[in-house]
């Protein structure tokens, strides 16, 4: 029996995290190698960037190429989001929304009203284009002070809200903070904590990396990346925006329970179930006391691991079906 098939330990709680979205990677929608790059990335989510750096003009040819770009990127099993600039909200939504998208990533948000406008406009587009109404998700890329200061009202604004994306370098710059890792502590520590808490409070999740790697975005050694992911996961992030392609595989492994954790929590479940059968409210395991909350957490962790495994299987199957094409 594979991990994904084992459904014997289903917790009664809501699934945690809501989505298996451990890694996100930005690709250019106009990149002729988009399909190949998406195929090779293995990211859980791909954020398609519509605007070429240094060219603020709207690329009109995208309206004809975007559907195939979305299809090509989605063919490897990744969730596809389009990056939308809040200052050009409706214009960009009008040309960027097609079937096959999971949602959008809003940048430079100007408050909860931006999310409301985006949500209303998405509803209109969903009606017009035969997309299930309410299905498109909105992620918020927190790149300014408003995104932090009004995070609670933003998160509560719409059922479409799926989470916060935290990019340390952009946010530090917006807040007038250092953009070099000079401090001995993370200047965004409490801001990240707040965004994670707010996102979780509405059933969404936050993606981000720990300090200092989140700020430097260096192409560091695998060990450094793994350690940074561990700290990020311990902080409460459920995934990260990957600055480099080679962060992705580490994120996919690091933002889920490790095999050792799964083994341990399986034993917790077994030992506690046996204790319950014998009429006990708590039982010892390896010197620790196992009671109802620990058992519940164990079930959630095992389920999390199963869902992550299932997500990997989906991506493998999708990749096997589709060979990379040029978008």
């Amino acid at each position: 029996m594979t991990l994904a098939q084992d459904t014997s330990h289903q917790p009664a709680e809501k699934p945690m995290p809501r989505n298996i979205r451990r890694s996100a990677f930005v690709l250019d929608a106009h990149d002729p190698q988009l399909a190949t790059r998406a195929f090779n990335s293995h990211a859980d989510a791909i954020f398609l960037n519509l605007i070429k750096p240094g060219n603020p003009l709207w690329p009109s040819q995208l309206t004809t190429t975007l559907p195939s770009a979305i299809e090509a990127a989605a063919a490897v099993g990744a969730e596809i989001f389009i990056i939308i600039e809040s200052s050009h909200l409706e214009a960009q939504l009008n040309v960027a929304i097609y079937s096959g998208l999971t949602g959008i990533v809003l940048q430079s948000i100007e408050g909860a009203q931006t999310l409301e406008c985006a949500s209303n406009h998405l509803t209109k587009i969903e009606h017009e284009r035969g997309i299930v109404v309410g299905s498109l998700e909105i992620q918020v890329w927190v790149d300014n002070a408003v995104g932090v200061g009004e995070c609670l009202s933003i998160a509560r604004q719409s059922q479409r809200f799926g989470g916060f994306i935290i990019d340390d370098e952009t946010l530090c710059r917006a807040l007038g903070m250092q953009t070099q890792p000079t401090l001995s502590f993370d200047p965004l520590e409490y801001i990240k904590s707040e965004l994670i808490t707010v996102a979780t409070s509405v059933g969404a999740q936050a993606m981000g990396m720990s300090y200092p790697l989140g700020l430097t975005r260096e192409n560091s050694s695998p060990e450094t990346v793994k350690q940074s992911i561990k700290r990020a996961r311990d902080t409460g992030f459920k995934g990260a925006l990957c600055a480099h392609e080679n962060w992705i595989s580490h994120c996919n492994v690091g933002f889920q329970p490790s095999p050792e954790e799964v083994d341990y929590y399986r034993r917790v479940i077994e030992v506690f179930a046996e204790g319950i059968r014998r009429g006990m409210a708590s039982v010892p395991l390896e010197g620790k006391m196992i009671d109802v909350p620990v058992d519940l957490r164990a079930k959630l962790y095992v389920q999390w691991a199963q869902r992550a495994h299932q997500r990997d299987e989906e991506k493998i199957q999708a990749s096997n079906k589709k060979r990379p094409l040029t978008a």
Partner: protein
Amino acid sequence: MPCRRSWLIQSVLPSTQHQDKPSEKADVLVLDLEYSVATRLKSRARQALREQLLNLDAIQQSAFVRIDWSTRWADVRAAMYRGIQGLVLPGPENPEDIADIDTLMSQMERERGLNQGSTQIVLMLESARGFWNAQSLAQASPRVSALGVGRIDLTMDLKPLPQNEFRLSRYLMSRTVVAARMLGKQPLGAFWRPGTRGGVANPTQTQEAAREAQLMGYRGSFCVNPDQVAAINHGFSSE
């Protein structure tokens, strides 16, 4: 907006203790009606204020007045004269209070021929409620130009941790810098360490506190000793 890194707080009344002249001019001189003036001398301090403001205006020194919250109405009336650039309000907690002071300031500006709306307000946050309400306090009046972190280690009874820092102050400074940046106000504060806070910090410690605050997004700080002015200016000048 002029460069306002160092905000030197000085008593309105002459100090009985010898004070060195700062080696550098403070970007802002804050004439104090609060802690540096004994209660029995408040009335005399208010009377002395007008002339001092005129003198500072003559030498083009930016001058703010820190009022005492408990005697704010009398203090605001005493401070609103030619030469004043703004008021520093310590320990605000409710937006309504800021709006009330704004109304009084507008009345004083009319009566005394000052440009309408020209006198600024700097909020010096000092309490849990004040920090929590930072955003609404800053929005309570268009005069608010800066949000400052005040005596949080004292008012919130923070104790130094083994790591030799006030962990809560990082959280409070984060809240303040977000509110300030969101609303286009200048964030004021220094990352003081236990035992080296404010008045007892030497120039080296002051410069380090300013530098770390600058890295956290702050752009100026209050200080009480003239020898801290250069340290503050340098700390907030380094990139």
